[in-house]
Structures are given as C-alpha cells and as structure tokens.
C-alpha cells in the first residue's frame, strides 16, 4: 500500500527523519506472461500502462525499459507544453493532452509541476504573421486557446524580449496562456508510481531483442535480455528506437532518428516569466523552477543514435537567444545534452495499430513529444484496449503515408515568395 503524498505526510515523516517512505515503485522480476506489454519506459509508455490499468481494467501489464525509466526523451527535452497547432487533427490531439496536464498532479498524487506560464511564439516576418494569425483563427474555430499579440504586447508579456533593432524585428506573437512547462522527471516517476500502485510491473534494464509471433501471425510477446515475456498485446512506445523494435516485427516505419540538443544555463534568480519560441530563428527558452534557463537547440541534419550533436547546432541556438535577449550573453551554459528524436515525413506522430495483429505503435513525436505525454498515453491505452483507435488519434495512422493523408504542420507554414 502506497502512502499518499501531501504536505502533511512530509511533515509527519519529517519528525521521523523521513524514514517512513517506501519505494515509489517496485522492482519486480518479469512474469512469464502479461495481458499487455508496453515497450519503452518513457512518459508515454508509463502513462499508457497507467491508463490501461486505471481506465480499461487491464492490470496485468508490464512496462519494459532497456535502461532506466524516463531516461530517454522524457528526461532530455525542454518541457514545453502547448496545443496551438494548425490542423484540426493535431489541435485535437495536443489539446486532449493539454486538458489533462492541468489535473495531472492530483490524478497521480505526484507534483508534476505543470506551470501554465504561457507560451509565446514570435513572428518576425510578414509571412510569419500570416501563418501565426492563421493559427490563431484556426485554433479559435477548434476551441483551442491562442491569441495574437502586437510586438508591444509581446514585450509586455516577456519584458526581457528585444523587439526592435535586431536582425529580424518582432512583428507580433501568438500566445497560448494555458501553455507552459512541467517537470519532466516527475511525469515519468508520477506515472510509474501510480501505475505500480495499480499492479503494473515496471521492469528496468530489460531490453527487447525480438518480437514473438503466434502461428496466426499475431503478436505473442517479446524476447528480452531477461527472457521471453508473453502477451497478446504489445504497445511499442520507444521514441528514437522505434524503428529498431519495429524492424524486429518486420514492419518498416517511415521514421528517421535525429540528434536533438538542449541546454541549460547556470541558475539565476527569476528573470524569465514564460516560454518563448521563435520557429523562424530557432529559439526556444524558458526558466526552470531551479532558475536555469532551459534552451532548446535544433536537430542535426543527419540521422544518428549517438545522443550528441554538433557544436554549430548549439551555437546557432545561442545566437538566436542572444539576439532576442542580449542580456543573457554573460550567462553561462551549464549543461548541454542530446536526445534521439524520431521524425516522420510529415512530422506528426504515428499512434495506432500496425499490420501485425496485437502490435500497436506510438512514435514519431519528433521534437514535440513531451507536451503530448498524458494525451498520447491515454489514447494509446485506449487503442490497445479497444484494438481500435480513439477518434482523436484515428487520423494518425501508418497508412496515411500510402494514401497521402498527411498531417503536415511544417508544410503548412511553408516559406516562399
């Protein structure tokens, strides 16, 4: 029986030297069989296991993680959360997640520190203005919060922002006030603890080495470094390594894995009140609760599994940050790290069934998967439980590439003329 987290429990256990706490999740040996397996112990996978147990009554579930949970992209991103996407399909998908973020701490009894500080996306050209205003209008029609700010309003919202006398002056911005950030590790741990409490086995240091198939061709389980584990349903939620896992099932997936870098500054007292993104000049910045400026850099041009990128990518990100926020030039980079992001041809995720019965796939979130975590997990659990996609993720099939029903947000922001 897990003990509930609260100020009271902290206080009470504080009097006892904080000795009364038990493990937040168990470390069980894998059982020979389960009702469902999730491959990949990131936020998406742990969350899917939680919702399978919590909403669909499927509790004999194991999450198989080749390293330590939350050690992939969950722990390597800049934690930006927003849902102001252009297309109806993506707006619905990301807004499904955004709605869940606001109550996630209470749902999990784990403070994931969701902080709706507002996400401000800057427009620097007339074309940017057209694209972002189109977003604002489309979001309004979809019931997704997003508003247009003049340059002065943008500066009022983020006072350290420089809007003039820069190479690309700020011509305005799209603001989603309900967007923000959350604490990435807490999301993984919170889902792990809550799923564990419902009976889910979280098995770390367990790498999947093969997919077991029944005579019918359907999935029968997985082969792992800790032995075979059987299950009629297997959900793959392995981000940058999805291609490797799907290759084991003989399913080719249109994914490329790229290095994505992020970095933080040394901590400073509060200076940055919100999240600012500039897609045009590639600046992504917020400030963590600890005081570090959290900055996203771009992906490298080539696919790689090395979890590191080139210095020119980092330099490019910091050029943009220093151009918009020239007072930060004297701050110092404390840590820089790389993740492996899996990118589809239309940069939208694949979330649904595969040609192999019983095998489900959740991948292709590219650089933006963290924001979708609760929604993605919730929909993936639904899809696994019902053997059919939820209406929100129904458009995000593998087949859309064959038929041409791409959901290409980046193409819709095409720059020309």
């Amino acid at each position: 029986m897990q003990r509930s987290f609260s100020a009271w429990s902290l206080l009470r256990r504080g009097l006892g030297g904080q000795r009364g706490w038990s493990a937040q999740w168990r470390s069980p040996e894998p059982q020979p069989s389960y009702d469902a397996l999730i491959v990949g112990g990131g936020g998406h996978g742990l969350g899917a296991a939680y919702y399978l147990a919590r909403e669909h009554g499927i509790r004999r579930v194991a999450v198989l993680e080749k390293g330590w949970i939350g050690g992939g992209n969950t722990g390597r991103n800049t934690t930006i959360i927003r849902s102001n996407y252009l297309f109806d399909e993506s707006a619905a998908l990301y807004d499904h997640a955004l709605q869940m973020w606001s109550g996630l701490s209470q749902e999990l009894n784990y403070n994931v520190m969701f902080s709706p500080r507002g996400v401000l996306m800057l427009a620097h050209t007339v074309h940017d203005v057209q694209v972002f205003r189109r977003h604002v209008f489309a979001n309004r029609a979809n019931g997704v919060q997003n508003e247009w700010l003049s340059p002065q309003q943008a500066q009022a919202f983020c006072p350290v922002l420089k809007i003039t006398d820069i190479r690309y002056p700020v011509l305005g911005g799209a603001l989603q006030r309900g967007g923000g950030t959350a604490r990435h590790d807490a999301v993984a741990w919170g889902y792990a603890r809550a799923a564990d409490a419902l009976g889910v086995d979280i098995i770390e240091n367990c790498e999947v080495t093969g997919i077991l198939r029944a005579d019918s061709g359907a999935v029968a389980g997985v082969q792992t470094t800790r032995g075979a584990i059987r299950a009629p349903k297997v959900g793959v939620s392995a981000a940058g390594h999805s291609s490797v896992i799907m290759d084991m099932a003989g399913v080719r997936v249109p994914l490329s894995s790229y290095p994505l870098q992020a970095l933080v500054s040394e901590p400073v007292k509060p200076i940055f009140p919100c999240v600012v993104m500039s897609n045009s000049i590639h600046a992504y910045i917020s400030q963590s609760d600890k005081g570090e400026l959290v900055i996203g850099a771009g992906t490298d041009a080539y696919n790689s599994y090395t979890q590191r990128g080139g210095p020119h990518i980092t330099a490019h990100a910091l050029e943009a940050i220093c151009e918009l926020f020239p007072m930060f030039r004297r701050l110092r980079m404390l840590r820089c790290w790389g993740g492996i992001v899996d990118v589809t041809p239309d940069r939208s995720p694949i979330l649904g069934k595969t040609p192999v019965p019983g095998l489900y796939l959740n991948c292709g979130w590219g650089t933006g998967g963290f924001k979708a975590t609760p929604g993605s997990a919730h929909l993936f659990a639904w899809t696994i439980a019902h053997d059919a996609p939820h209406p929100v993720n129904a458009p995000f099939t593998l087949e859309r590439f064959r038929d041409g029903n791409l959901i290409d947000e980046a193409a819709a922001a095409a720059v020309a003329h």
Partner: protein
Amino acid sequence: MLLINCPWCGERPEPEFVHGGQAHVARPTDPSATDAQQWAEFLYLRDNTRGVYAERWRHSHGCGRFFNALRDTTTDHFIATYKAGEPRPAPEAAR
C-alpha cells in the same frame, strides 16, 4: 561538426555539406507503373539503421557534387565515402 571526406575535395567540415538522406534509393523509372504502396515507399520509407548506414551528402559549399557515405549511426564515424554511381563498398573492404 563532423569532418567529411569528399571524394573530390578531401576532408572538409560539415557546414560545407548538406545531408541528402538514405543512399541507393532510386526513383522508379516509370512512376506511373507503381502502385500506391510502392510509390509511398519511394516517397517516405527510408531505413533508419542503427549501425552502418549508407547515406547521401552533397558538398554544396564545395564542389557541389552529391556523393555517398557509409557511416555508423551509433558512433557517427565514417567508414567510407564514394562517388555517386559507385557501388556501396563492403564495410570490411572500406576499412
């Protein structure tokens, strides 16, 4: 910032190059003869190899030539680079 051995110009830093995706993916000679699946595979499906990967680079800010490379995606070390049109070398031979 990788160091890439252009078959024409020698080792040059990565900013002179543009990555061109997977190598040896030929455009169907008669696209109208392909079915939807085959055409979609040509358009979108690329290997995402964890290990030795054959890829295209273009020395855009150099000699302008496309060429191919074998690179280990787990280390980013190049095993070989070779001119477009040449066959993919055996990894052992390339060493």
